Structures are given as structure tokens and as C-alpha cells.
């Protein structure tokens, strides 16, 4: 089948690359409208304080100011978060969404008031004139304190704990008693930021039909429903048009500017634009959660793991947002991609007065994968086997059952991915640094991460295709494009199925009024979900075209194929009709030349939260990273010399994009391993700029070698799996393992800064 495919599997550039490389693509901030006002947000200086009063009189009196809004001006200030899911899931998975702070503020940077003015300078000036009288409250900043019964309460409830999930199997105490070697450790990971290069931005206006229209950089256009709720409008009077994103990584999954500009446009009747500064972006949006993870693991002398116990505490920050969802991923992945008889996983998430945690590439997997993979490598060493051997002995395989009770019916590329990554990094001779103080080491880690949303959300996607009379094709699909080629992949599928060149396929995306809703660009779900919806629609049209051509060629439709804009008899390719001619026949005879299809993921019920068992996700992507580092024993500095990323991606639709995800994902979480951390002092962020929040530059990033395996066992089109988030899952533990190999210290507290490494070397 592979050879026959014309478009799938070929390294074709994205259709949007041309406009991007010429600087012609309009991102959200690049749009302006006549009569547009500029918005600015007043944000809390305190992490925890009572709002005694807000006086907006001086701000309102400033020339040019058209509106100043506080919580009392928001029709429905307190609603329930939804994230575009098809089904209400309630029960802790949906929680308070508050547009503007009321009564008390919960984190530094929380929005307190909004201003719209004729110029940005006026809006900035007006924000300074709003007088808020605060009474500072003690707050709670350490999640281990927040779970105590007598702790300060962040919200209005009498506990800070917002989610508590457990999963168990067998008898861990018995498992530990059978073990010859036991390792027990506490791991910590910090809050980190997405630092997409494009700060949040959007413009809202009321169109000539009275529809509140919002053009915004978002991963979730379905937030139009949330905005409608905030304003008390029918859902069909709010329209969201998503722009191409300048990166998202989960940080644009929650509502960002939408409600603010919607309220201001509604109040003033004028278009309103709001773009965050970089500093504001750091303060305003979610973070990847800080976790504290106690792990205990035991194994027999032969390396077979007998029991694993994980106690996980997630700092969800000031509001729940997606924290319970993220925690569910952690619950499922905490015991890693291993087949272990005795498992006990206990995960809690609690509110603090820190920035709020929510989605960030990996969604609760990188945290637990760092801890789990680190302890597995340490266990291997204690037993006297290699990191690869322990994984070969214990990793799950097809037919095995995961800790959480899900049976792996489909092909599992373990330990293959680990073997290939490890072999590839060891193919090169170890570098000998000229500098005596530098030691080189190599390490590896494996991982599993889901693609597709949790199955109890009953996820769906829709896509619409229309064949034009000249043989070109128009696709409409409400998919937000983050730059991963989400839209381009759909074009490739259509080109393949309808036998037209990629250049003849045009796609319209991300508009709640004009494109079928395709769900969120999150959870590594678009190729799987919208890819399948598009494939389904394309195949219906293909069948119609073949059926019509069959009548003309006196064969059955099954005997025909389409390629290169021709429909031909597969056995006698010379017997063919131009595609365009068949289209004209259909058009003339009233055969429908358009189709909209919906794809449904597997549906399950909400699991028993006191013992999560069975299917929670559609499927997993399995992968591995190997890394080579040089550690300077005098300065503690780590240089990553080489990275190999190996994944079973099911099927490569486009090598350029697939490898792009693997390269980018590796470097994204290389930062997690070594430098990235939101530094907080009692709820105040101390590093809200690129100067102090250090992400990898070209100088830091090594060459990433990508090895893609194609099992064709995925649930996506042509057997593809998802790669966006999995791509970053196992690099941090691989780097930490390599540091240990180089200098003999195991860092259990990310990031592995030079100070921590030096301190560990001296200990």
C-alpha cells in the first residue's frame, strides 16, 4: 500500500510556510479595525488579599477612556470551565471560572479590572489610576502545607484539595516483602512556562448582525460557549475566529483574552484589541504544575520489579482550571510503561496562592515520567544491570495490562524504541573533552503518553469537504493550527484520497460560525480526530466519484482507483477518465459534491476515582530518548552534546513535520531538565522575562537525531499515532540519567542547575 500513496509519507512543506517565511501571515496582533479601542488589564499585586473597595472614578475621567469594568460589571462572573468537550462530566472535572477577581484575589497577576481607551497609552495610564484597597491575607504557597486541614483556604471551599485519584493493583506490601532491592525517593519538579513566542492577543467587535465576534489566538475556539455564558448571550450570538497561533503548547488552551475583550466590546460597542506584554503573559497564563512525588520501588535480584508505590501531590495554584484532568493523566502514567503486579498510585491536587497550573505539553506525564524513569534507572544500578536491561525486563508489551487496568490490545513498540535510541547514541565514540574538568556521560529513558482526549469526555471532530467544478477541493474544519501542521495534514489526507495535487486543496480552519467544530488542538488529538473525520468525509466523496465513473467505464467502483486527477481501472490504468469530467457529470446530475463527516473517539464512563481502572484514553504513543552530556565538575554546568529521539509514530504522514515535533519536543523539555523554573517567593513571580526565565537557544541545543518507527498500529489515519506531546516526555529523565553516568550524582529536583550539581558533587 505504501508505494501507492502519492502524498502521505512525503516530506512536503506546509501550505502556510510560504506566507510565514515572507512575514505575510497575520497573527492575532497583526489585525486592526477602524475605530478600534485598546484594552489593558489591572492585575493584582498581591497573591492573597481581600478586596475592600475599588474606585474607578479617576480612571473613567481620563480623556480617551471608554470603559472601566470590574467584577460587578460582568453579567456572569462565576461560571464553570468547559474545554470543548462533548459531554458534561461534572464531578470535580469542571470547576470555577472567574473572569475578574471578586472579594479576594488568589494570585499575583489575577485580573481585577479592565480598561478600554482610544490609545494604548491612555489605557495604560487609566489602569494606574484605578484605586484598589486591599487587605493582604496570609495565603499558602507550599502545596504540602496547603493540604493540611488547618491551612489557609485559597478559595471559598473548606479544603484546598480539589482532586484525589487512586489506582491500585495487587498487594504492594506483599510485593515489597518479596523484593531483594528497594529504592525510595522524593522527586520535585517546578512550575514552568510555555513561553510560546507569540504573546496572547485578540480583537473583539460586534458585527453588523449583532454577533459578538472575537478574533483570537487560541487552541480552543469552543470557548465561544464560555464567553456566551459570561455575557448571558445565546451561543449562536458569539463567534470565535481563531488565527494561526504563534505557538501554544497548552498555554492557550484556557480562555486568555476572550472574555475581557468581549465584555469591553459589548460595553462600548466598539472593536477592542488586547495584546499581552511578555511580562503580562508570564503572569497571566497557566503553568505546568509543580509536583512533589514520593516513589518506592522494589525488585528481585534478577531485575523483575515486584512493586511500585507513587504518592503524588500537584500544586494546582490559585484556580483549578485543568488540574484534575492533568492529574488523571498522571494517575494513569505514574507507574510508567511497565508491567508490574503490585501497584499503588495516590494522586492529589491542591490549591495554593501560586500562579494557576493547567495544560502544558505532556499534560501531567512529563512530571511522573521524570520520577518513574529516574527511580527505575537507580534501581537498575542497585541490582547491577543496565538501564536498558531493566526496561527490557519490565516494560509492557502487547497483550499486557497497564497498572491502571487497561489492556494493551494494540502493538506496543517497547522495548524497541529504547533499544534503538540507546544503540544510536552509542554508535558514535564518546567525546573526550579537552577540558580535564569535563566529564561525558550517556543516559536514556522511555515513556508512554496518550494521544486523544480522555475517553469519558466523549470526544468528537467534524470536517467538511467540497469538490469544486474545476477539480480543486475546499476543506472546512474548525481545527486551530499551532504550527504543527494541523491543517496541512488534513490537506494531505484529502489530496491522497481524491487523487489531486496538494496545491489544489485549500483549507479554511478555526471559525465557530463557518467551519464544522473539530474540537480542541490539545491532547495530541488533531491528526487522530480531525484526520479521521477528514478521511471519512473524503472517502464518501471518493466513493461517489468512483461510482459515477464506474457507470461510464462499464466496471464496478471497486475496480477503480484515483490518482493524478484521473479515475482509472486499476488493472488497466489506460482506461481512465479525467477527474474533472467525472465531477462535471456528478454536478450536472445532482450528485452531492460535498460531505461533512464526524469522527467519534471511543466513549467510556467517568472512572471510579478511588480506583481508576480500565480504559481512560484511546491509545498511547511509545517513545524513548537517549542523551549525551558533558558536565563540568568545577562549575556544575551541563552541556547536552547529543540527543536521539525514537518513537513509534504509527505512520509518518510527513517526515518534515513528524521530525519537527520530535526535535522541538526534545529541546522543549531539555529546558525542563536543565534551566526552566518559575521562581516564586511567597506567590510572587521573580522571573517574568526571557532574561531570567532561561529557555534553550541555538547555542544550547544539540543536534537531535530522530528515528521514526512505523508500526501502522495507531488509531489515526493510515495507522498514525500522535506525536506532539509524547515528543517531550522522556528527555528530562534521559538527561538526568546521563548526568549521573558522567559524574555520579542523581538530581531529583528539577531543573538540574549548576548549583544543585555542584552541591551534590560536594555532598
Amino acid at each position, binding site marked *: 500500500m505504501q508505494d501507492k500513496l502519492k502524498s502521505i509519507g512525503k516530506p512536503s512543506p506546509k501550505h502556510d510556510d510560504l506566507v510565514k517565511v*515572507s512575514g505575510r501571515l497575520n497573527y492575532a496582533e497583526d489585525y486592526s479595525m477602524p475605530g478600534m479601542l485598546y484594552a489593558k488589564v489591572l492585575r493584582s499585586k498581591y497573591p492573597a488579599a481581600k478586596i475592600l473597595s475599588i474606585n474607578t472614578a479617576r480612571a473613567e475621567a481620563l480623556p480617551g477612556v471608554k470603559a472601566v469594568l470590574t467584577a460587578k460589571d460582568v453579567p456572569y462572573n462565576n461560571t464553570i470551565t468547559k474545554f470543548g468537550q462533548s459531554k458534561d462530566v461534572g464531578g470535580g472535572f469542571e470547576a470555577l471560572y472567574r473572569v475578574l477577581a471578586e472579594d479576594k484575589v488568589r494570585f499575583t497577576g489575577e485580573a481585577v479590572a479592565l480598561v478600554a481607551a482610544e490609545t494604548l497609552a491612555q489605557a495604560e495610564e487609566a489602569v494606574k489610576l484605578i484605586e484598589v484597597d486591599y487587605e493582604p491575607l496570609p495565603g499558602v504557597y507550599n502545596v504540602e502545607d496547603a493540604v493540611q486541614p488547618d491551612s489557609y483556604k485559597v478559595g471559598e471551599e473548606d479544603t484546598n484539595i480539589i482532586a484525589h485519584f487512586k489506582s491500585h493493583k495487587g498487594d504492594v506490601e506483599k510485593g515489597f516483602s518479596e523484593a531483594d532491592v528497594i529504592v525510595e525517593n522524593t522527586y520535585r519538579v517546578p512550575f514552568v512556562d510555555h513561553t510560546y513566542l507569540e504573546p496572547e492577543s485578540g480583537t473583539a467587535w460586534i458585527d453588523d448582525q449583532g454577533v459578538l465576534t472575537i478574533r483570537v489566538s487560541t487552541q480552543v475556539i469552543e470557548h465561544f460557549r464560555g464567553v456566551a455564558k459570561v455575557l448571558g448571550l445565546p451561543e449562536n450570538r458569539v463567534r470565535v475566529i481563531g488565527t494561526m497561533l*504563534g*505557538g501554544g503548547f497548552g498555554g492557550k488552551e484556557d480562555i486568555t483574552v476572550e472574555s475581557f475583550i468581549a465584555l469591553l466590546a459589548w460595553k462600548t460597542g466598539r472593536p477592542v484589541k488586547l495584546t499581552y506584554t511578555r511580562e503580562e503573559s508570564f503572569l497571566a497564563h497557566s503553568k505546568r504544575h509543580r509536583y512533589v512525588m514520593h516513589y518506592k520501588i522494589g525488585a528481585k535480584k534478577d531485575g523483575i520489579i515486584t512493586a511500585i508505590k507513587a504518592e503524588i501531590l500537584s500544586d494546582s495554584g490559585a484556580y483549578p482550571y485543568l488540574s484534575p484532568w492533568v492529574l488523571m493523566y498522571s494517575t494513569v502514567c505514574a507507574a510508567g510503561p511497565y508491567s508490574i503486579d503490585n501497584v499503588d498510585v495516590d494522586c492529589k491536587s491542591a490549591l495554593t496562592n501560586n500562579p494557576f497550573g493547567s495544560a502544558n505539553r505532556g499534560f501531567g506525564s512529563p512530571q511522573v515520567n521524570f520520577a518513574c524513569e529516574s527511580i527505575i534507572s537507580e534501581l537498575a544500578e542497585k541490582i547491577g544491570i543496565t538501564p536498558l536491561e531493566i526496561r527490557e525486563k519490565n516494560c509492557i508489551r502487547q497483550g499486557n495490562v497497564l497498572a491502571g487496568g487497561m489492556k494493551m490490545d494494540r502493538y506496543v513498540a517497547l522495548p524497541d524504541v529504547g533499544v534503538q535510541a540507546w544503540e544510536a547514541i552509542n554508535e558514535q565514540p564518546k567525546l573526550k573533552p579537552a577540558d580535564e574538568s569535563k566529564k561525558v556521560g550517556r543516559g536514556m529513558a522511555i515513556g508512554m503518553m496518550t494521544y486523544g482526549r480522555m475517553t469519558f469526555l466523549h470526544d468528537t471532530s467534524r470536517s467538511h469537504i467540497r469538490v469544486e467544478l474545476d477539480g480543486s477541493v475546499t476543506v472546512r474544519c474548525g481545527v486551530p493550527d499551532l*504550527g504543527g501542521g494541523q491543517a496541512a495534514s488534513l490537506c494531505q489526507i484529502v489530496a491522497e484520497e481524491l487523487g489531486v495535487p496538494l496545491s489544489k486543496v485549500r483549507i479554511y480552519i478555526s471559525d465557530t460560525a463557518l467551519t464544522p467544530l473539530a474540537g480542541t488542538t490539545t491532547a495530541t488529538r488533531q491528526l487522530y480526530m480531525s484526520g479521521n473525520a477528514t478521511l471519512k468525509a473524503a472517502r464518501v466523496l471518493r466513493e461517489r466519484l468512483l461510482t459515477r465513473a464506474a457507470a461510464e467505464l462499464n466496471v464496478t467502483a471497486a475496480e477503480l482507483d484515483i490518482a493524478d486527477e484521473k479515475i482509472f481501472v486499476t488493472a488497466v490504468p489506460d482506461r481512465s477518465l479525467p477527474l474533472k469530467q467525472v465531477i462535471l457529470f456528478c454536478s450536472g446530475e445532482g450528485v452531492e459534491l460535498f460531505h461533512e463527516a464526524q469522527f467519534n473517539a471511543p466513549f467510556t464512563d467517568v472512572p471510579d476515582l478511588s480506583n481508576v481502572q480500565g480504559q481512560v484514553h484511546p491509545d498511547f504513543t511509545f517513545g524513548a530518548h537517549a542523551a549525551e552530556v558533558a558536565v563540568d565538575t568545577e562549575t556544575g554546568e551541563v552541556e547536552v552534546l547529543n540527543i536521539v529521539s525514537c518513537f513509534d509514530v504509527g505512520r509518518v504522514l510527513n517526515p518534515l513535520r513528524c521530525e519537527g515535533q520530535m526535535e522541538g519536543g526534545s529541546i522543549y523539555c531539555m529546558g525542563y531538565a536543565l534551566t526552566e523554573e518559575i521562581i516564586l517567593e511567597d506567590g510572587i513571580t521573580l522571573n517574568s522575562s526571557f532574561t531570567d526565565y532561561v529557555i534553550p537557544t541555538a547555542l544550547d541545543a544539540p543536534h537531535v537525531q530522530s528515528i521514526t518507527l512505523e508500526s501502522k498500529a495507531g488509531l489515526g489515519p493510515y495507522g498514525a499515532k500522535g506525536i506532539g506531546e509524547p515528543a517531550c516526555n522522556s528527555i528530562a529523565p534521559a538527561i538526568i540519567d546521563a548526568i549521573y553516568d558522567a559524574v555520579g550524582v542523581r538530581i531529583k529536583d528539577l531543573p538540574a542547575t549548576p548549583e544543585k550539581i555542584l552541591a551534590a558533587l560536594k555532598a
Partner: protein
Amino acid sequence: METHQIELTVNGRRRSVNVKPNELLINVLRNDLHLTGTKYGCGIGECGACTVLLEGKPVLACLILAASANGATITTIEGIGAEKLDPVQEAFIDHGAIQCGFCTPGMVVTAKALLDENPQPTEAEIKDYIRGNVCRCTGYTGIIKAVQSCGCGGEHKKVTAKKQP
């Protein structure tokens, strides 16, 4: 605030604009001249998204007062490959060096400056030259390959799928 008229030659066109003394070049380019290809990523010289060429040299438009550029010749991304794509732009496309594309204009301008100065840069020279241009999506591998491929008189090899192990 009082404004002054300044003259700029932007992408070969003479432009005159009234600017406040504290107005930054990035705002003049984006808001007054509607050249929105130059991006704001940080505003404090830490990301490179706003890189433009001033008298042929790469500078950060978020750090330069427009008034100080009076009389200068400026090239923005819109001035590169306007007729026909520059080889470095084609190389970016062919090597998968573009994901979200938000860093791309600044990255292309910087790469162009590098290749003008040093037509055959080594990998180390490329990394050093673009170190001020942050890309959060690609991990830089594709970008470096793209620039490297231009290192032989504008010709660049097209990428093919990597071999399967």
C-alpha cells in the same frame, strides 16, 4: 507629546513618519508603516523576533528609538524575497525550519545577515550568530540545517526523509 518628522528608507521605499521622541522602531514599522512581519516577542531585546536590518546589519527594532534611525536604510522581512523568495527562505521551507512561524521573520533576517557576511558558515558559526533568536517550536535542528544548506553560493540541498533504522 511633541512629534518629529523622520525619514526612513524601508525596503527601498522612502517613507516619512511623525514620531514621538520615545517611540520605538518596532512600533513605527508595525503601526505606522503596517509592516507587521516584524514581530513583538518580548520588547526587551531577548528574543530576536523583531530583528530588522539597519544599514545591512541586524538590529532589534524593540530596542531602537525610531528617531535615532532618522535617515537610515532599513530592510524588514517584507523586503527580503519580495519578488522571488531568497534562497534562505526556500531553504527554511524545504528543511522544515518553520513551525508556528512567529520566530521565522526575525530568524530569516538574521540568517540573511549572516550569509551576507559569511557565505559559508560552519555549524558553530551559525549557532553563535542566531543565538539571540529564540525559537520555541523547532528545537533549531531544522533551522541550522536550512542555513547550512545555503552555504554553497545560494544552492541548497532539498531534504529527504531520514533513513529508517
